[in-house]
């Protein structure tokens, strides 16, 4: 059997194995999932406390505040995406595995989204209620968060991979990710605002979907390249 034809484990199996392992780890350490969630809730609470309880004010600022809080919560959880793997040597084992690194990075990103992105989407209606958001608008908020957090997880995987071996990487990670995350924030918050004003939301949702698909197609490769470089 020549080297080129040699069979190696299934890409999909490997990707799912990584995702399953990370989900199992999250299950054994629920704090890692819950902390960003509490952070999300608390940041969203800070605004009514600081801006004042005027209902008009809350309705107006709700979409933006919830989106900023979600973005910050995602950033908070990203730092550890590859860090523990780097520290205990399992990242090195992935680097010498016969599976494409991009698939493994995607597997980890999927687990990250399931443990930090999806919970945000699920608790957002509760917070939306405190901002007096109508049910229909809350639906749009959840939809934008659903599409937006996918992009944020994927973009974050690039940033986390670039900063994995570095000292004091938290601030740097934010600096690298935020410019790329800004379109998500702009369109996410704006779409919810438009929904609140009773206007069409299709354009914004299409854009968020486009960004999610684009990052899904490119980010795993960029993250894999970054991981190899960071681990030299």
């Amino acid at each position: 059997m020549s080297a080129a034809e040699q069979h190696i484990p299934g890409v999909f199996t490997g990707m799912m194995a990584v995702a399953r392992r990370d989900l199992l780890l999250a299950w054994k350490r629920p704090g890692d999932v819950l902390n960003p969630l509490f952070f999300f809730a608390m940041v969203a609470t800070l605004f009514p406390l600081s801006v004042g309880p005027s209902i008009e004010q809350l309705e107006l600022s709700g979409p933006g505040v919830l989106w900023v809080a979600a973005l910050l919560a995602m950033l908070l959880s990203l730092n550890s995406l590859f860090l523990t793997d780097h520290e205990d040597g399992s990242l090195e084992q992935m680097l010498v595995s016969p599976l494409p690194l991009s698939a493994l990075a995607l597997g980890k990103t999927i687990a990250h989204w399931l443990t930090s992105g999806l919970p945000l989407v699920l608790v957002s209606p509760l917070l939306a209620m405190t901002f007096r958001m109508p049910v229909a608008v809350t639906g749009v908020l959840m939809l934008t968060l659903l599409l937006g957090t996918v992009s944020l997880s994927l973009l974050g995987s690039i940033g986390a991979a670039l900063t994995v071996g570095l000292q004091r990487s938290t601030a740097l990670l934010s600096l690298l990710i935020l410019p790329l995350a800004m379109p998500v924030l702009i369109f996410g918050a704006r779409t919810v605002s438009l929904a609140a004003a009773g206007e069409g939301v299709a354009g914004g949702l299409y854009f968020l979907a486009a960004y999610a698909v684009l990052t899904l197609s490119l980010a795993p490769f960029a993250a894999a390249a970054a991981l190899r470089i960071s681990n030299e």
Partner: protein
Amino acid sequence: MTAKLTCDDLTLFRGDRCLFEGLSFALKPSELLLLEGDNGSGKTSLLRAIAGLIELERGRVCWNDVPVLAQRQSFHNSLVWMAHRVGFKADLTLVENLQFESALRLQCAAELEAVLVRLGIHRLKRLPMRSLSAGQQRRVALARMLLSDAVLWMMDEPVTNLDREGRSLVMQLISEHLSRDGMVIMASHEDVEIDAPVQTIRLQ
């Protein structure tokens, strides 16, 4: 086809320091390559460079006459890697960790149970890795090698943290692997007694 690892003119700098320069060697089945040198002499870097984890300043590594960077996946399919850090998740049990490994590397050369018995860690199966001692974790890393059918074993200080019995077990496992036409590259700062053809590279 018999496997063959050829390294040609390997040169690596770390910052401004030259770790090794113009290093060439070849490894055939049943051969052991021993990398010797003091701490910080670049043994680990050389191992990592051969495995394709570090970009070399100059030179290239070929597996079956094809550069490994052009066929990274096939090369890694023929390789198991035992580093300083064992690469297991502290929160998962021994068995969960090894199951994950087998998903990454499909081939299973041996029965899990038998391997664990041989290494004397079958009683620890359900324990999380964090409750294992450093030497026991080392043995789990050995289990990873035995479970794989990879030709090339790359080991960085494999006997660290192991007791006398563990050390002789490692040597025995290496001998067995070599007798099955396997190849071993090992970095060690201790003397190794093994009954096989040994090439030694001493790094300054």
